[in-house]
């Protein structure tokens, strides 16, 4: 009898011990699970943040074009707050771009405040060895508030500088425009201007551009019009659509 009682208490003790071990193990597992949950939520949180950022940035370009919003650094002719925004991705050394240069000028003149025309650089460096330098030169002139003047001179004289020492010729243009030459030379080589042109180029890549000129009218990529009247019609249709 006494032996039985002893056995029972021993068993009880053993049971208690086992339940204590079990509890300890459960606590340990709980702690491990808690740690896993903590780190998994950290990974999820960081991934979600990166995803949200990339998604918003990635969607920005078409959205930005569709919303007609123009960046601070964009060169805009006409009315930058107009309902009609025409964006051109262009290369100063491409012959098709020269073809559209007078058409755009005429359009801006004719539509006046009804449209905003944005010029963005898309120099095709491999095909046109001086295209990037031309873009930098226009930007450097822009630093002295003569972007459009330099833009026009570069397009008007494309044949002159395409086959010769372009840099020397651009400096001549700068002199003609009464720019501070030292500043102009310094700006051409500045990282700021190179970044600006590169940023334009990259935004073009993001927008799926592979040729110049490429036009976006209120965010929609349009097929290059064959002549002035066709261009005018497309814009008029968009004006009607928006009114």
């Amino acid at each position, binding site marked *: 009898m006494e032996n039985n009682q002893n056995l029972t208490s021993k068993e009880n003790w053993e049971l208690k011990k086992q339940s204590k071990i079990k509890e300890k193990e459960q606590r340990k597992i709980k702690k491990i699970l808690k*740690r896993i949950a*903590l*780190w998994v939520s*950290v990974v999820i*949180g*960081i991934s979600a*943040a*990166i995803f949200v*950022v*990339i998604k*918003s*940035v*990635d969607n*920005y*370009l078409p959205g*930005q074009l569709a919303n007609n*919003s*123009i*960046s*601070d*650094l*964009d060169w805009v002719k006409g009315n930058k707050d107009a309902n009609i925004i025409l964006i051109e991705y262009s290369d100063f050394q491409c012959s098709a771009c020269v073809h559209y240069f007078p058409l755009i000028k005429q359009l801006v003149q004719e539509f006046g405040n009804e449209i905003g025309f944005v010029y963005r650089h898309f120099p095709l460096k491999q095909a046109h060895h001086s295209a990037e330098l031309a873009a930098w030169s226009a930007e450097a002139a822009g630093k002295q508030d003569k972007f459009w003047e330099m833009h026009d001179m570069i397009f008007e004289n494309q044949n002159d500088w395409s086959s010769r020492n372009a840099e020397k010729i651009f400096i001549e243009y700068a002199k003609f425009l009464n720019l501070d030459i030292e500043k102009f030379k310094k700006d051409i080589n*500045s*990282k*700021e201007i190179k*970044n*600006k042109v*590169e*940023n*334009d*180029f*990259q*935004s073009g*890549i*993001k927008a799926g551009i592979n040729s110049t000129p490429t036009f976006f009218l209120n965010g929609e990529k349009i097929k290059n019009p064959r002549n002035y009247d066709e261009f005018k019609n497309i814009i008029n249709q968009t004006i009607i659509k928006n009114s």
Partner: protein
Amino acid sequence: MTNSKISSIKPLLKIPKLLIFAFLIASFIGFFDATYITAKQYLGTPFNCFINGCEDVIASQYATIGNIPTALLGVIYYLIIFIFVVAYLDTKKRFFINFIAKFVVVGLIASIWFLFVQFFIIKALCLYCLISAGVSIILFILGILVIKSKNISS
């Protein structure tokens, strides 16, 4: 447990949880902000800047070191802080929080430099860079509070 052991653990309990969570939230905001700037820089899309100047600042020579955007360094900086705070929450090892309390000085120095560049060199302000500077200053203050709480408890 010896007395020396007790005194080495005691300070752990003295760092207010609120301070730790403030660290966590601030570093996450900084990480989010720096990631946004980096993504914009890499993808070359224009900024949604509510004050004029984001593009001027980001296109400037001060926005990169070599080919690395400084914003990317910001991403790494905030991520280190965030991970170390979580590591502290996980292990309760004082090392992590002590490290952060000193590490935030790096962010403060960088922020002072970038504020100087924006105000006096480029003369343009970038909203997202200002947010980052604000977060760095907050983190620095939190770092001081951590060191202070450590001194009080010890």
